[in-house]
């Protein structure tokens, strides 16, 4: 991956535009079109291009998490009111609202009772600037949970939002840890875009070890080789 880095105000070089003939060009986060022909960066980051979708955007590792619609997040219930739970996504963002009935199969009579401090895997259903962010604990189109809902047991680890995104990208993100551990050990995992990873393997020692692998891989910016080396060592210690 040869990444070109742009700083705010710099122009996007024309050779890094998506190489497609048809379709309109889609500009992602961090880029702005200044008519007639120039595209400039508004933040710093490396250029990412998707040729299929004819899209170009800037990828950066800094900054806090800002909710946007469709993100899967791990929210922590702070307090409940009559029909919503007020949830914290990060210590910096205002509380997000999660409807008490926004769960799979929830009705007025049977609904999950969450206490302050409980964790929920949820999707951001509405994120408009200047308004409260809304979450849902199920897919409201199908009514199925699709893996969302309350997270019981396990441990939640803090990583950077960029690392969480890489984890969700699977093999393209360049993080091999979850797959690597999964070959040897059975565990559950939920990755939230707000920089939280929930892991439960039923065993304290292995859960802590997986968490350590993830956080140190994030902090030290390990490449695939270093990850595999650490992974091998950790697996040896676990067994």
């Amino acid at each position, binding site marked *: 991956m040869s990444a070109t880095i742009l700083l705010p105000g710099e122009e996007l070089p024309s050779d890094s535009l998506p190489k497609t003939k048809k379709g309109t060009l889609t500009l992602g986060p961090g880029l702005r079109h200044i008519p007639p022909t120039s595209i400039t960066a508004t933040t710093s980051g490396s250029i990412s291009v998707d040729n299929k979708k004819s899209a170009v955007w800037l990828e950066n590792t800094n900054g806090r998490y800002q909710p946007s619609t469709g993100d899967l997040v791990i929210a*922590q219930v*702070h307090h409940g009111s009559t029909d919503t739970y007020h949830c*914290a996504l*990060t*210590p*910096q963002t*205002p509380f997000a609202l999660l409807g008490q009935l926004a769960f799979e199969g929830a009705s007025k009579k049977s609904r999950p009772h969450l*206490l302050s*401090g*409980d*964790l929920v895997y949820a999707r951001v259903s509405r994120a408009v600037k200047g308004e409260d962010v809304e979450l849902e604990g199920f897919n409201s189109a199908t009514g199925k949970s699709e893996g969302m809902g309350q*997270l*019981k*047991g*396990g*441990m*939640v680890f803090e990583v950077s939002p960029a690392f969480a995104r890489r984890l969700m990208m699977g093999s393209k993100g360049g993080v091999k840890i979850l797959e690597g551990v999964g070959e040897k050990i059975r565990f559950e995992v939920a990755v939230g875009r707000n920089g939280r990873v*929930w892991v439960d393997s039923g065993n*304290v*020692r292995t*859960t*802590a*070890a997986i*968490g*350590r692998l993830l956080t140190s891989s994030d902090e030290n910016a390990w490449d695939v080789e270093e990850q595999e080396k650490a992974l091998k060592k950790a697996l040896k210690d676990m067994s």
Partner: protein
Amino acid sequence: MPREAEPSNNAKAFLLQALRENVRLDGRAFDEFRQIDLSFGDEYGVATARLGKTKVMVRVSSEVVKASADRKFDGVFTISTELSPIASPAFEVGRQDQAEVLLSRILEKTIRRSGALDTESLCIIAGQKCFHVRADVHVLDHDGSLVDASCLALVAALMHYRRPDFEVRGEEVQIFDPREREPIKLSMQHQPFCVTFGYYEDGSVMLLDSTLLEEQCREGEVMISMNRFGEICQIAKYSGEPVDAMSVLNCMNVALEKVKVFDKLVKAKLEEDEKRRDVGGLMAELSAENAR
């Protein structure tokens, strides 16, 4: 509206379960410190200490002031602490937080009240002029064990600092610029360090160097400051569940060992720094102790 990140119920339960199984989340032993890193700035008296992710910077400076009337033979030494939002979303600007009061009180008791810095040596002319040494403690990142890290950085900065040399001719005082005469080290009587113990499970599990999460889940803490000779400068057990007297006494022995480690580390780092500055071996010639 930033606020303190409270641990989730899952994290609390997991941490306690792990401690019951003798596991710490970062894989350390119960009495093991995180990676300690100490570095000095280009100027004298700037020290930065890191304990894992916790990072504290201390800057020592001095100026000549009028001596106070009731302490004629002493210089002035003040410690100021600042917890700003840069360290953690829990800290606000301007508001004096409980944590800040405690941090400054513990540092005050550990270093000022125990007489670590010989304030009499800061006197220039009794009752008229003296040095005012000021230490500013800046917490840059907060991930637990704030007091331990601050204390380490503060002691290291004081030992690193040099005050300007002076000469008294009758009533006249001449303060020499560092370019004219090599500045002089402060005279320290001893080097106290602080060790904080967090306890869980009715005092049966004692943790050293807790991370922020471990601090938020603990039942109580004991803060002990002592020097390498085993002289205790301060003990503070403010809060938390009652704990057996015997386990408090056991803490003393553990603390003494850790303090000796700190002491060696600071001295080794200072020596390293001195070597770095001593380009060409000219320092010995410049020393103010030489005959003129």
